[in-house]
């Protein structure tokens, strides 16, 4: 059910150029054609009673409570299913209507337990409210007949919500929410009348198809489906609109609060990235914010073998600053650096890079985008001129052909995945390019027209073959290319791509994709109408990641699929603020707004604003920092909210680098894997504890609003300010809004952004400036940001990570819905119910060949290291390819990934590691044993304190 004070006009908004004027209870109202009478009434300020209707779902017309009278029509039509007509005269109140409604209500109430006073949704229940609205005074039927509440047992199997069928009024809002909003089709309504029952298949919620998105809970008008947090803590008293801190969809939420305690997160229906929907992470998995593992006091120690000592903020900051200064004095200005966080706000990220550039005086700043979408930045900037996706999410609603490459939206970007599935159910065609049979290939009412199941590492060969077919079959958009792209570059590229070595019949041997299937997919992409490409880390995390991004941009330009709704090149970015952290100048070669540090005019701008000279040389990237730490030229690192020890490849190399540092300062919520190597720990603040903004995958800047005070006393931006001051470079801001004002002053794509403007517009997609005062949903409309689009030659080069007799399988890595990246947050929630360990997915053929059975421990050995995981036998994988997630540090997934990386950006090649798999009786590898011992030692070095108050 909707959060406390939100209006619900009952049926979805309609968009139409045609307006219809009608009269409701004597009031004239004008609405878009296609609107329901119920919604028009709501616009006119008239609330028609209702139960089965809610504005997130198409009208169903089953409860008969919303009956109205319409002049010239017989009977009493349901206002939710009746569409407005010009000149219509509607009455919503009359004696016969009141009587009918009371009769309907009486039926419902006779089948409902009357325990309102002890019900968790007492005071926020639509049944209760509507009984009041229709003026129900008596129930004549008694409570003895067949009814729901006698037959039913509560289902409490889901960790986040309960299902109490006794309270069900069979309105089917939950069933429809699961179908229409989420697209999972997990629920059904059986039987009729008092016999009707909601079921999650033949099993409980926990074991059903349900993905725990909560849409049904939100849609339920009664306490039948209700959050456990509401049952335990009671109803909220106010709410604060903020933005999810998990994935790059950037869903807007109302954090519902009782006192200073969050009791529920409800997706905001005005949120333009999510339109009132969410996934299990954002809606339910926020308990980590008050988890007992939170460290809330600053700590220092001289060596990583020493116990941590709790100290005051002042002492910790002064110690960190003096260490950085000592290191710079001894080893040089370039011996220290910082890592910004894609989980922190834009303002915080901006401050960390400013600290590095202005207080450290070098450009040694990088961010976790290095290991995920840095090739997107490079590839799209080179071809199109801007390091960002071209569309808004809603653009998918105009797509006729959707191409998903190396992405798994239903798991990693679930709310956008649902929106995409909606479009697919409405008829768009789907092409999936992925080594793995992801859910989208075949799920409820969705089936890919083509699944190009390529071998990992052969993306570029596939994209070239697609372009080859389009060019050689003459399917390209000649006039678009002529008008919008650089001709000489295109001519060179065309000669390259037309060569028969790119024909699918030739590449088939390398890619494993049948030529006929590839040709059909290319034709569909080029000629099927608006075609949009969505891609993820399966594109970027390769030795040819940047090449592949440019190959994708080539394809879009070639077919004119750019510059309007329904088309485009859309990177699905992983973390909540990875777009923002890149925008904010987190890369060692770029100042905010993607401007190279070698540009004197840009440096002069920042030098004047910041009052210091800016180094003209690019700094170290994360992998270079590790190498420089091992060779001794890099000795001090400030890490805000990232866990490089778990997330970066070749763990043993990373930990050797971290051990070599003389001063590692970690600012985080928890003692993560990196913090185990730290000398200074600065407690971080969760997204609920601070003000700021996040920028999602569609360049949408949304507000993060403080819901509760920071547990450790400081928001992350305040900590960075304190550190800068102690380093001798004070920065003066009283509130993050002032940091955004500075960003806007210095960044041409942000000039129109301010907190006042964000409050006014809800959210803004950059560029936002004089030419686009309300932001830019679709980019490159009349011309590319770089002027003309540039075709780039993308020769396929096989990865050096070859399979051999010793390492005959390819390991590729990915994510799962319920866990988020390194899992520091989600592992500290009940999301572990669904995924409590990383497993190795292996094809039955490969498993049988090795004598591996489902659930067996398997040793996985690569050129970099070895680890042990349990096997899951799965036909999602093709033979020869194995797969695992990396959400649990003890799994050691990155012990086996190698240091191979993208040629342009050093983004690691996570998606291709040659391995051997064999059954083992030992559930741990040597590394895992050492890891376990080290973790135990580090735990013992923590001060024993009371858990923080909830």
């Amino acid at each position: 059910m909707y959060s406390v004070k939100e209006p619900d006009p009952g049926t979805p908004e309609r968009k139409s150029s045609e307006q219809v004027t009608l009269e409701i209870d004597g009031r004239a109202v004008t609405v878009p054609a296609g609107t329901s009478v119920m919604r028009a009434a709501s616009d006119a300020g008239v609330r028609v009673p209702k139960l089965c209707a809610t504005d997130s779902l198409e009208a169903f017309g089953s409860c008969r409570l919303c009956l109205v009278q319409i002049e010239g029509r017989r009977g009493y039509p349901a206002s939710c299913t009746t569409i407005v007509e010009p000149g219509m005269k509607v009455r919503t109140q009359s004696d016969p209507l009141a009587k009918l409604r009371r009769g309907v209500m009486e039926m419902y109430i006779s089948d409902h337990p009357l325990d309102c006073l002890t019900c968790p949704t007492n005071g926020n229940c639509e049944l209760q409210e509507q009984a009041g609205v229709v003026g129900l005074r008596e129930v004549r039927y008694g409570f003895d007949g067949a009814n729901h509440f006698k037959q039913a047992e509560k289902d409490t199997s889901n960790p986040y919500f309960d299902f109490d069928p006794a309270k069900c009024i069979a309105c089917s809002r939950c069933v429809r929410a699961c179908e229409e909003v989420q697209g999972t089709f997990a629920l059904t309504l059986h039987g009729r009348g008092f016999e009707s029952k909601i079921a999650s298949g033949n099993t409980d919620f926990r074991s059903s198809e349900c993905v725990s998105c909560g849409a049904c809970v939100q849609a339920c008008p009664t306490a039948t489906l209700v959050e456990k947090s509401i049952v335990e803590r009671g109803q909220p008293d106010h709410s604060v609109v903020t933005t999810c801190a998990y994935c790059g969809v950037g869903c807007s939420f109302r954090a519902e609060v009782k006192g200073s305690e969050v009791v529920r997160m409800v997706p905001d229906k005005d949120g333009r990235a999510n339109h009132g929907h969410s996934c299990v992470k954002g809606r339910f998995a926020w308990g980590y914010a008050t988890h007992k593992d939170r460290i809330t006091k600053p700590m220092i120690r001289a060596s990583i073998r020493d116990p941590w000592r709790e100290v005051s903020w002042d002492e910790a900051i002064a110690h960190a600053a003096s260490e950085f200064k000592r290191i710079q004095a001894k080893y040089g200005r370039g011996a220290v650096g910082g890592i910004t966080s894609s989980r922190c706000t834009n303002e915080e990220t901006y401050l960390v890079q400013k600290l590095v550039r202005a207080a450290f005086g070098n450009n040694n700043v990088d961010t976790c985008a290095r290991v995920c979408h840095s090739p997107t930045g490079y590839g799209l900037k080179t071809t199109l001129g801007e390091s960002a996706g071209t569309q808004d999410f809603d653009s998918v609603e105009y797509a006729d052909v959707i191409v998903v490459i190396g992405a798994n939206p239903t798991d990693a970007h679930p709310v956008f995945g649902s929106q995409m599935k909606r479009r697919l159910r409405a008829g768009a065609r789907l092409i999936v390019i992925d080594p793995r049979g992801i859910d989208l290939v075949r799920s409820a009412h969705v089936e890919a027209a083509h699944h190009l199941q390529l071998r990992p590492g052969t993306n570029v060969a596939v994209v070239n073959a697609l372009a080859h077919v389009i060019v050689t079959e003459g399917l390209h958009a000649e006039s678009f290319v002529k008008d919008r792209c650089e001709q000489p570059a295109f001519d060179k590229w065309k000669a390259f791509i037309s060569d028969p070595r790119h024909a699918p019949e030739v590449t088939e041997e390398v890619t494993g994709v049948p030529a006929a299937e590839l040709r059909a997919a290319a034709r569909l992409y080029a000629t099927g109408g608006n075609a949009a490409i969505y891609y993820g880390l399966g594109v970027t995390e390769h030795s040819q990641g940047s090449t592949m991004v440019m190959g994708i941009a080539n394809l879009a330009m070639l077919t004119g699929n750019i510059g309007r709704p329904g088309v485009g090149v859309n990177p699905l970015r992983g973390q909540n603020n990875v777009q923002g952290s890149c925008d904010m100048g987190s890369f060692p070669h770029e100042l905010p707004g993607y401007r190279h540090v070698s540009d004197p005019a840009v440096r002069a701008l920042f030098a004047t604003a910041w009052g210091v000279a800016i180094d003209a040389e690019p700094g170290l990237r994360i992998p270079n920092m590790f190498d420089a730490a091992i060779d001794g030229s890099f000795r001090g690192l400030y890490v805000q909210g990232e866990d490089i020890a778990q997330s970066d490849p070749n763990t043993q190399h990373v930990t050797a680098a971290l051990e070599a540092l003389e001063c590692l300062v970690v600012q985080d919520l928890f003692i993560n894997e990196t913090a185990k190597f730290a000398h200074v720990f600065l407690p971080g603040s969760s997204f609920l504890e601070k003000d700021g903004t996040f920028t999602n995958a569609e360049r949408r800047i949304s507000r993060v609003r403080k819901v509760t005070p920071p547990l450790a006393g400081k928001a992350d931006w305040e900590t960075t300010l304190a550190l800068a001051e102690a380093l001798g470079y004070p920065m003066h801001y009283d509130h993050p809004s002032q940091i955004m004002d500075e960003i806007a002053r210095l960044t041409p794509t942000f000039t129109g952004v301010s907190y006042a403007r964000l409050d006014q517009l809800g959210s803004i997609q950059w560029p936002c400036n004089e030419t686009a005062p309300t932001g830019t949903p679709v980019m490159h409309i009349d011309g590319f940001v770089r002027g003309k689009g540039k075709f780039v030659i993308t020769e396929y080069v096989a990865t050096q990570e070859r399979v051999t007799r010793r390492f005959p399988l390819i390991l590729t890595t990915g994510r799962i819905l319920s866990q988020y990246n390194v899992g520091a947050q989600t592992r500290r929630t009940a999301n572990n119910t669904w995924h409590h360990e990383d497993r190795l997915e292996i094809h039955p053929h490969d498993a049988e060949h090795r004598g591996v059975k489902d659930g067996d421990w398997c040793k996985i050995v690569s050129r970099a290291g070895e680890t042990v995981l349990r096997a899951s036998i799965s036909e999602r994988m093709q033979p020869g390819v194995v797969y695992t997630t990396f959400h649990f540090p003890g799994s050691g997934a990155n012990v086996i990934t190698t240091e191979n990386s993208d040629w342009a950006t050093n983004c690691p090649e996570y998606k291709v590691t040659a391995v051997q798999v064999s059954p083992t009786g030992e559930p741990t590898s040597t590394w895992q044993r050492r890891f376990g011992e080290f973790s135990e030692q580090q735990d013992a070095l923590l001060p024993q304190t009371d858990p923080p108050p909830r």
Partner: protein
Amino acid sequence: MEAHKLVKMANEIATFFESDPDPAAVHEGIAGHIRRFWDPRMRRALLSHIDEQQGDGCKPSVLAAIAANRDNLTPA
């Protein structure tokens, strides 16, 4: 910085730019990329590897690109 890693990185950059049919563009591409993205200590280490080890392991296009752009690539 370990020379073999820098050599590997430079060679991979070269492999990308080598697909341009124009040799001048190849050299410009390689040197420009290294200049734009490599921290001075990395460039210095590669240059000294070239000087001291005759560029052992480097692709010819890397050596040619660096020879043609040596001044620009040498950190101040």
